[in-house]
Each structure stands twice: as structure tokens, then as C-alpha cells.
């Protein structure tokens, strides 16, 4: 089912934003040595390292969230090694949520029961910390600013700027998103054109499925010859619980119910201090049943008898969703191109078997900074990363995630083998593209196990949130309604015809906040996009089976306002 090529999509995107590409709009230009797109752990670590090693460099960090940390959502148990190297004193002034890991549990769930499994060695967390990554990023940002880094929350990098022609094309910076554009694409009364940020080197640190990274990976053919990238979709809630139920530092992961054996994923539960806990769930976006509903799977998991006694009577403080880059070593694109580098999850450095990405994001960021400081440019960064400890860490575990393409049991056996051999198997398994992995609805019906999973949800759920919209409330997401829709669907005819027929519009099920709706009324069947609900997880940009959804940055400051996630 070939969709339109990314080139068509990128062109269509610029057609929809005439102001953003118009040469007639006067724009301020700001010059930097290094411009970093994305104020997450990778971007901020890169900025700090650059200034630590070469204070004379001018460095800026662009961030689309209204403030640093507001779009950060991560597990998150961090391995402190790279952070210790970056910021040795971080423990003296810890982020608002920071609990030392004390005990690990790994469970297999059936509908009613739970079995303890041996802890996989990658998942031992001794010496690690459960943190709020959003809070940690706020501290990194404050430190970066104290070193002279210019941090700009509320200013999304919207598109890359190019210089040179043909083979000499290079990235010369990024254009920030325009503010005050009306829904019809015209300039409103407060219209403020986005600044052009010019830089000797642009570092893309946008996190999972970065929108500029996506464009550049295509344009510079950085993924040619690599395995397709694959992602997961993660949900997370911060709970405030009745006193005395938690065991601070307890880290619990589960596999099994409510997922069937062909769907990759599992849960996490991290006990915090102050009678709080993080509860979350991750599903591989290479799931195959188009009727599968990831958000509802998460909610079902919370109703397992092993979970409800903990959660009952508690309340949600904050919640959200974000995709996770899972492709690892074989899907890692070339990390450099003329004028720009990819780091962290925008590149895909996360270690899936460890279920940790922050140490890798910081590690790759520091290497990128070292490369820039030592050589004055990014050339050679790709080789340097692959040969580094962070690169070798990815190589060792490269076959574990794709092993689960053949089901849970094969995956576990393969993971055990790979772990014993330390990744010295002579082969490298392939990932497959998430947007291609769906079966047609008709084929799914023939599959009994799936039928059970897709339809037999326990309808009566007692724990909050009631549904996806109630959950969205806890993300406190805001988009000014009078702005252009930032979810570009290239051909909505496909939605009401082929997709309805072939897949039953899976976007209405995989979107964690019900952005996509199919409406049937007098005007006929059509797609309705509730863009203001969007929590910027990027699942639609990844999973839509025709590759026709293109996520672009909305007006700066829009999106979720996560607290302590």
C-alpha cells in the first residue's frame, strides 16, 4: 500500500503554510555558533557540555513548550553515569521527584494472576534513580543559562533552513514557528513572524519522531540502507495515593495481560516518596490488529487485581503520552549531515531492553558537543558515536527488540540467548516499519485471539480517568483554537474510503487523546481533527497506515503542560 512519498508530503506541508515560506515576510535573523532544537535532556546536555568546554561559543536552545519540561514525559529510571559526568553536583540539588531505586520486580500477568519472573540483567536498577525528567530538565536548563546558553521556551524550530545547491546543500539553521497566524493561514492582528536562527551547526534534539529530524533524514537520505525505524507508544500517570501503600524505590515491570503474545509492550510502576507513584504502559507501535486500542489497554492493566488495591481511592495528579523510539542500532540513521547533527531520541539512541533512553540521550549529546569543540564541525560524529560506549551498548542489545516480532515467547527466549552471548550473535535482525504492520480488518477477524483482545474489554472501569478526554484533562493541553490545524492530513478522501474499508480508521483508536474522529452526518462521512487536544506524542505521524499524516509544530507554547512527569 504505497502512500505518497515523503517528498510529496513535505511539499504539501509548505503549501499549507504560505506565510511560513513566503519570502515577502520580513524576519529577524539571529546568529549562533550552535543552535539546538529541543530543550530535553539531549539538547540541554549538549548545550551544557559545549559551554563547559568552550565558553566562547554562542549556543541557543529552542523549545516548543511554554516552559522547559512541560512537554517532557518519560518513565523514568535514570542511570546516572552520563549525568554525573555532565553535572557532578546534580545530586546536591535533586529534581522535585528523585527517589533512589531500591528493589526490582518483573511480573507476567494473566487476566487474574501475576507470576514473578527472574529479573532480566538489563533491568537491574541498583544505583539508579526514579526521577521526573521534566523537573530534571528544568534544572539542566537553569544550569545551561547560568553558563550563558540562551534558552528559548515557547519557540519551536519549525523547519530547517538550507544553503548551497545540489550536492553542496547544507543546513544553515532553523526557522522558528510564526505566532498569531489565523486558522485560515493569514496573518492575525498580533502576527509575529518566527525568527530565522542561523548557526554554524544545528543540532536536532527534538526527541522521538522530531519533525525537522524527519524531514532531514529523508532529504539527506540518512536512513538509506538502515532497517526501518520502529516506535512504541507510552502512557504515564502520576498518582497521589492514600497514605501507607507505597514502598518508595520499588520498581515493577510487567508483561502479558492485557496484551496478547503478538503485541509487544508492558507496564511500569514506580513507587515514589510522599505517597505517590508513576503508573505507565508502553505498546509497540508495530502492533498488528487495527482494532487494538493502546490507551484502553493501559486502563485495563490498571484494573488487574495486582494493581487495583494500590490505586483505589487515589487520584491522578498529571498524565500524558509520548512515543518512544525503539529501533536501536540497526535503525539508527546516519547521525550527521552537512551543517547538522542528530542526537538523543531524535536520532534513536534509546536502549529498549534496558527501557532507558536518558543516559543515552545525554551520552550522545556530550559526544556531539565534544566533536564540535574538538574539530569545529560535526563531520565524524557518526563514526565517533558508533564506536563509543553508548554506541556499543546499542550494538550489544540490537537483536532483542526485533526478536519480539515473532511473538512474546520467541522474543523472551531470544532475549535470554542474546543476553548470555552479550550480542555476539553473528546476525542482526531487522525491524519493520510501524505504518506497514497493520493487518486489514477483514484478516483480523479470522484471528481468534485478537478478536478476544480487541473486543472483550471490561466495560466497567472504576479507576480514573473515565476515558481519553478525561485523561487529556490531566495533561492540561492547550492550543489557541484560532490557529491552523497542525496535523496535516494529505488526503482525507483516503480516510473516508479506503481506510474505513481496509482498517476501520485506526487513528481514532491509537491517538491517546481522541484527536481523530470520523463523523457521519448529512454531509457524509468525514475526518474531524480535534487538533487542540493534541499532546504531541507523534503516534499518528508514525502509525497511520497510508503515511498521510504529517505532524508539524503548532504555535509556540501550545501543547501539554505536564507537571512532574
Amino acid at each position: 500500500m504505497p502512500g505518497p512519498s515523503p517528498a510529496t508530503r513535505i511539499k504539501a506541508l509548505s503549501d499549507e503554510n504560505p506565510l511560513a515560506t513566503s519570502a515577502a515576510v520580513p524576519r529577524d535573523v539571529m546568529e549562533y555558533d550552535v543552535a539546538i532544537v529541543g530543550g530535553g535532556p539531549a539538547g540541554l546536555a549538549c548545550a551544557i557540555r559545549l559551554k563547559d568546554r568552550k565558553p566562547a561559543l554562542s549556543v541557543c536552545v529552542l523549545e516548543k513548550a511554554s516552559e522547559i519540561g512541560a512537554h517532557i514525559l518519560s518513565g523514568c529510571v535514570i542511570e546516572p553515569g552520563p549525568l554525573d559526568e555532565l553535572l557532578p553536583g546534580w545530586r546536591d540539588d535533586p529534581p522535585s521527584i528523585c527517589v533512589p531505586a531500591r528493589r526490582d520486580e518483573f511480573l507476567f500477568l494473566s487476566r487474574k494472576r501475576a507470576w514473578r519472573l527472574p529479573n532480566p540483567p538489563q533491568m537491574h536498577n541498583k544505583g539508579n534513580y526514579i526521577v521526573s525528567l521534566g523537573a530534571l530538565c528544568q534544572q539542566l536548563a537553569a544550569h545551561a543559562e547560568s553558563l550563558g546558553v540562551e534558552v528559548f521556551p515557547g519557540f519551536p524550530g519549525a523547519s530547517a533552513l538550507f544553503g548551497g545547491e545540489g550536492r553542496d546543500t547544507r543546513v544553515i539553521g532553523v526557522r522558528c514557528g510564526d505566532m498569531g497566524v489565523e486558522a485560515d493561514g493569514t496573518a492575525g492582528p498580533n502576527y509575529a513572524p518566527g525568527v530565522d536562527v542561523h548557526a554554524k551547526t544545528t543540532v536536532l534534539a527534538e526527541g522521538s519522531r522530531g519533525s525537522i529530524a524527519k524531514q532531514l533524514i529523508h532529504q539527506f537520505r540518512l536512513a538509506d540502507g538502515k532497517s526501518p525505524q520502529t516506535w512504541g507508544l507510552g502512557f504515564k500517570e502520576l498518582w497521589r495515593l492514600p497514605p501507607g501503600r507505597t514502598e518508595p524505590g520499588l520498581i515493577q515491570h510487567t508483561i502479558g495481560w492485557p496484551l496478547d503474545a503478538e503485541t509487544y509492550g508492558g507496564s511500569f510502576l514506580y513507587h515514589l516518596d510522599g505517597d505517590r507513584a508513576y503508573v505507565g504502559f508502553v505498546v509497540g507501535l508495530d502492533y498488528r490488529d487495527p482494532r487494538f486500542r493502546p490507551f484502553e489497554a493501559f486502563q485495563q492493566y490498571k484494573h488487574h487485581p495486582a494493581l487495583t488495591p494500590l490505586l483505589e481511592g487515589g487520584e491522578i495528579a498529571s498524565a500524558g503520552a509520548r512515543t518512544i523510539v525503539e529501533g536501536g542500532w540497526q535503525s539508527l540513521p546516519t547521525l550527521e549531515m552537512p551543517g547538522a547533527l542528530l542526537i538523543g531520541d531524535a536520532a534513536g539512541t534509546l536502549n529498549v531492553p534496558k527501557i532507558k533512553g536518558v543516559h543515552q540521550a545525554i551520552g550522545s549529546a556530550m559526544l556531539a558537543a565534544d566533536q564540535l569543540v574538538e574539530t569545529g564541525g560535526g563531520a565524524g560524529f557518526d563514526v565517533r558515536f558508533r564506536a563509543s560506549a553508548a554506541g556499543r551498548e546499542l550494538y550489544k542489545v540490537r537483536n532483542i527488540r526485533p526478536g519480539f516480532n515473532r511473538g512474546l515467547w520467541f522474543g523472551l527466549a531470544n532475549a535470554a540467548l542474546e543476553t548470555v552471548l552479550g550480542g555476539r550473535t553473528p546476525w542482526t535482525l531487522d525491524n519493520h516499519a510501524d505504518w506497514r504492520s497493520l493487518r486489514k480488518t477483514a484478516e483480523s477477524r479470522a484471528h481468534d485471539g485478537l478478536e478476544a483482545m480487541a473486543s472483550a474489554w471490561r466495560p466497567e472501569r472504576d479507576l480514573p480517568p473515565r476515558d481519553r478526554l478525561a485523561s487529556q484533562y490531566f495533561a492540561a493541553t492547550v492550543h489557541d483554537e484560532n490557529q491552523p490545524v497542525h496535523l496535516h492530513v494529505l488526503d482525507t478522501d483516503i480516510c473516508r474510503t479506503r481506510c474505513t474499508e481496509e482498517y476501520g480508521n485506526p487513528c481514532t483508536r491509537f491517538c491517546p487523546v481522541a484527536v481523530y474522529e470520523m463523523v457521519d452526518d448529512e454531509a457524509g462521512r468525514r475526518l474531524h481533527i480535534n487538533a487542540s487536544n493534541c499532546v504531541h506524542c507523534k503516534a499518528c505521524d508514525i502509525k497511520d497506515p497510508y503515511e498521510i499524516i504529517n505532524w508539524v509544530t503548532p504555535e509556540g507554547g501550545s501543547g501539554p503542560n505536564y507537571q512532574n512527569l
Partner: protein
Amino acid sequence: MKILVGIKRVIDSNVRVQINRDGTGVVTDGVKMSINPFDEIAVEEALRIKERGEAGEVIVATIGPGAAQQQLRTALAMGADRAVLIESDEDVQPLAAARTFMKLVEKEDPGLVLLGKQAIDDDSNQVGQMLAAIWDRPQATFVSRLHFADGNGRAVREVDAGLETLEVELPAVITVDLRLNEPRFVKMPDIMKAKRKPLETVPLATLGVDMPPRLEFGRHEPPPKRAAGIKVESVEALVKSLRERGML
């Protein structure tokens, strides 16, 4: 003419406010803080007056913790000329705030004081009125349109019955409502410029405003949860259900 604008650092309007465990206040840990939206409108109006050539200088001031510098920098990035932080880690109640502002008014001698009509955290809606009384100058509150002629301010204010137009002799205190304007977006180069604009910090204790708190907070509670609704099949069932509940 000099315009003095008072702003307050409050929990951002997009944040879901949560009450803390023991009910003594709201959770502020890791919560986004912003300029009170009404005050932002006051800053915007001051800038527009200046841009029309009717004022020479816009000074923004706040009473709050050291971190409130962040909100003052935002106002400077919008275009204000300089800022004053009257630093205090204590909660400052309306009368104390008005008396403190009075000290600033004595020092700066502004032709106009612009304030938001109220702050979205405590919704007191008192400081402007109190300041006008202490200063013994005219006031116009809830203003949604404002212009100047012959040294007087003409302010349209929203009242229960509709709109009321007041003419106030300057200097005066004007508190602004939502419809007055839509604040501009801050631009990146202006954020850089704002870092170099003067920001003076004055400890509240040095101003000699001795004002013990007069209001005491009892308890903070979230509004009661609504019970779940039910779905009825028909009009008859609806009527019956309402009757059973004694609502019809």
C-alpha cells in the same frame, strides 16, 4: 508621562491547580508561573500608549519572591523600559500591596498607574481601589477601552447594566479588564534585549510598610465532585426519574 504598571506572579492559567495534602494551600512545586493575565493586558496597554507617543516611560513593578524577576523580564521583553522588584517571600495581602505600591508611586511620581482588575490566584480585586484611596487620586476599574484627551483619561468600564464612560483627571489609577486588548507575542531578539534592561530589587522590609496580615486562611478544599450521571431511554423515563428525585 510616566506609566507605572503593577504585575503579579501567579500560577499559569493553563495549570490544573491542586490542593496540597493538608489543605493549607495549593501545590506550587514544579508548577508553571506567569504574569497574571489581567496584568499582562495592563502592560500591553501601557506599551500601546507609549507607542502612540502619549507616554515617555513604562515601568513595571511587582511585589514577590526573587523568582518573580522572570515575570518582570517577560514584561521588559514585551517592551517595558525598566522594572522594580519589591522582594518579599511572605504572602502580601491587598492592603499591604496597595501601601507598598504607594511608596513606589511617591518615588516615581507616575502620571498613570495601570493594574489588572484582579489577580487570578486570590481574585481579591482590591489593590487598585485601595491604592487610589491611599493616593487620593481618581480611579477607573474594569476598563475595556481607554484613551486620553486634554490631560484627562476617558475610560469605558464594564458594569452590570452595560458600559459606563468615566472621565478621570490624571494622575489616576486604572484597572483593566479582559477586552481591553490582546497582549503581543514576545519576540526572541527582544528577550535578549530585555536581559540588558535595568531591573532594580528593593527588599520590602526597607520600605517601612509595617503591615501584619489581616486575613486568615481557613482551609482550602476542591469543589465537591459531581456524582456520575445516568442515561435514560425516553422522555417518560426522564420525567419519572426527575420526579423520583423531587426535581419536578
